[in-house]
């Protein structure tokens, strides 16, 4: 099986989808001949032509509006927003249009073919506007699916899953891992299911939950906790919306403890939703309060990025406090 980094896996997924279906189109700012600022769409224009892989003018609301129209027409658009930080001009098109297209028309029309890709997250010295994790804004919008992969294998399988899913899907890519994360990726077309969390490692004392780049952070934190004899169950949520309550609840019923971690700020972050649901489901089984390890309630900083981010040390401390509660 070939080794790929996450960008290569994403590029391979797009290539696979475009080869299988001529209605799959990739477009966005700089995605054409240049292959995107991160090179996720490298060689796609050369291979499939300018009509199917192309640059758009610099207008996010236009990119998503255009993509909504294409999807309504029956095409399978994969639109790229260059950074998740710049998705907000398209907020109306995503929240009021993509998400509600099927519902408001009584299923006469839908934009189920739509996938929007956007690199998200910190750790690359990107400051306020090249670091954000906006998943919680969109998680408040029924009708959308939101997916975040943790490694190259997951990235290809989940992206193909998203492209083929009959619902509009936001696919947030952890750009810190674009080149840092390398692993085996099958060459063939395989699709990982949306809406299903994955138990990556079983354990008995505490459940540690995250998604995307945070999974690497969790891995380091758990390594340290396990050395101290704490048995950790690690779950990658993978799909933020609609999220897999069953898998998480089942785990917490077993461990009695939960730490949720994400890069986005604490207040209104998706960890709050998870904590609320899990305490409802598992109230009498909880041994300690559900802990959230997140970015702080500040705009994303630059020089003090390390202090801001929920790193493995902070996650480890949360595991420790939860067990010692």
């Amino acid at each position, binding site marked *: 099986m070939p080794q790929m980094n996450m960008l290569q896996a994403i590029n391979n997924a797009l290539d696979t989808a475009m080869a299988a279906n001529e*209605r799959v*189109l990739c477009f966005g700012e700089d995605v054409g001949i240049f292959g995107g600022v991160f090179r996720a769409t490298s060689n796609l224009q050369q291979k499939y032509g300018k*009509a*199917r892989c*192309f640059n*758009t*003018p610099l*207008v996010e*609301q*236009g990119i*998503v*509006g*255009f*993509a*909504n*129209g*294409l*999807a*309504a*027409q*029956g*095409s399978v*658009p994969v639109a790229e927003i260059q950074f998740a930080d710049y998705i907000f*001009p398209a907020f*109306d*098109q995503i929240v*009021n*249009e993509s998400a*509600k297209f*099927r*519902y*408001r*028309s*009584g*299923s*006469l*029309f*839908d934009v*189920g073919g739509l996938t929007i890709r956007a690199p998200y997250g910190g750790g690359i010295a990107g400051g306020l506007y090249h670091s954000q994790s906006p998943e919680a804004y969109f998680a408040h919008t*029924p*009708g959308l*699916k939101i997916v975040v992969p943790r490694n190259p294998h997951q990235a290809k399988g989940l992206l193909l899953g998203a492209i083929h899913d*009959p*619902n509009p899907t936001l696919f947030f890519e952890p750009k810190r891992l674009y080149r840092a994360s390398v692993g085996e990726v099958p060459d063939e077309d395989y699709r990982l299911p949306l*809406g299903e969390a994955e138990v990556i490692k079983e354990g008995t004392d505490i459940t540690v939950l995250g998604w995307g780049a945070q999974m690497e952070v969790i891995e380091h934190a758990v390594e340290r906790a396990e050395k101290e004899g704490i048995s950790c169950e690690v779950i990658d949520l993978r799909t933020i919306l*609609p*999220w897999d*309550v*069953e898998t998480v609840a089942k785990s917490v019923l077993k461990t009695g403890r939960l730490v949720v971690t994400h890069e986005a700020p604490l207040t209104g972050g998706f960890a709050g939703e998870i904590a609320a649901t899990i305490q409802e489901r598992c109230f009498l089984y909880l041994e300690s309060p559900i802990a959230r390890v997140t970015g702080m309630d500040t705009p994303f900083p630059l020089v003090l990025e390390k202090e801001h981010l929920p790193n493995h040390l902070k996650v480890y401390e949360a595991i420790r406090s939860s067990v010692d509660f």
Partner: protein
Amino acid sequence: MTTTKSKVVYNPVFTDGAEFRIPTFKLLKQDGSLYKGAKAPELDKDKALRIYRAMVTTRILDERMLAAQRQGRLSFYMQCTGEEAAVIGSTAALDDADMIMAQYREQGALTYRGFSIDEFMNQLFGNELDYGKGRQMPVHYGSRKLNYMTISSPLATQIPQATGYAYGQKLAGEGHCTITYFGEGAASEGDFHAALNMAAVHRVPVIFLCRNNGYAISTPATEQFAADGVAPRAYGYKMDVIRVDGNDILAVHEATKEARKLAVEHNRPVLIETMTYRLAAHSSSDDPSGYRSKDEEAVWREKDPILRMRLWLERKKWWGEDDEKQLQENMRREVLETMKRAQKRPPPALDTLVSDVYDEVPPGLAEQFDKLKAHIRRHPDEYPKTAEQAKGGA
């Protein structure tokens, strides 16, 4: 790389675009005769009568439904009144397989394509037969079979979608295009700019039809933009543009027919600015007396697009007093009868609350729905519409 090929000057020269004043295309005078030198319209009798009947039907539907709203039978309504020629004349110039992505005041396009009065009523009353399953406010129609995209309230969102839809049509290569309608107010939204620019860059077969009807609710066009209407913006995108008398059915039809050729045969998007007037209020919730005069309205009432077309038809001997009387009576009767029928129909089923959010109801939502049904079962008298349906389930 610069794309400017302009000549170089050595003193600061500012221009204000005044040299680009865009003319208004007209064919038909208010008395039903053609302007001297006007190109004779290519409109046969059958099509002309199909257009006229759609205009009259739309007017009657609007009058009756506004009255129904005033009687409290309907929650909300919006009229097309005064703009029937701009909407129906343009739709009639298209192929019926072309896509229409409208704003919300374009029910005339649906009437022309054959949306039945029953279909209108089912949506207006949000009953069990409404294609939209009673989810949207009145006038948010949609029809898959008539290629009319379901209306969305947010303004201008349909414009870049039309560009995308038409791009898909271009790739499909079946010779279809998309028309999108919007008001001069919506043209201030960023989505308008995005849509026109992308259409021009990617050579998309789309027609942007602006209904410049003078007002965005209460805000007059003079406070919407400083420029000479919306049309000059097309120059900035290097797009073909035409301004038309929006109350002149023949001019609107002719302009749109030519625009369609540019779009479909040459992949050239076109902006059409129809100059018209919203004779009615913005909606049933609006009262224009607070922002415009009766005198101003009277001037535009004199320019009624339906009367103008009728006079032309009468000159052609294609229409007469009896035809008019019969059409008016038939439509009024049909609207009233249909309204009664639609009003009596039951509401959409309880499970339409949670269907169509996704292709399948996700587990979390299914759980919420079960809780709701259990709640309704505990308080059946409080939920008379759905108590019976809540009986099943967990």
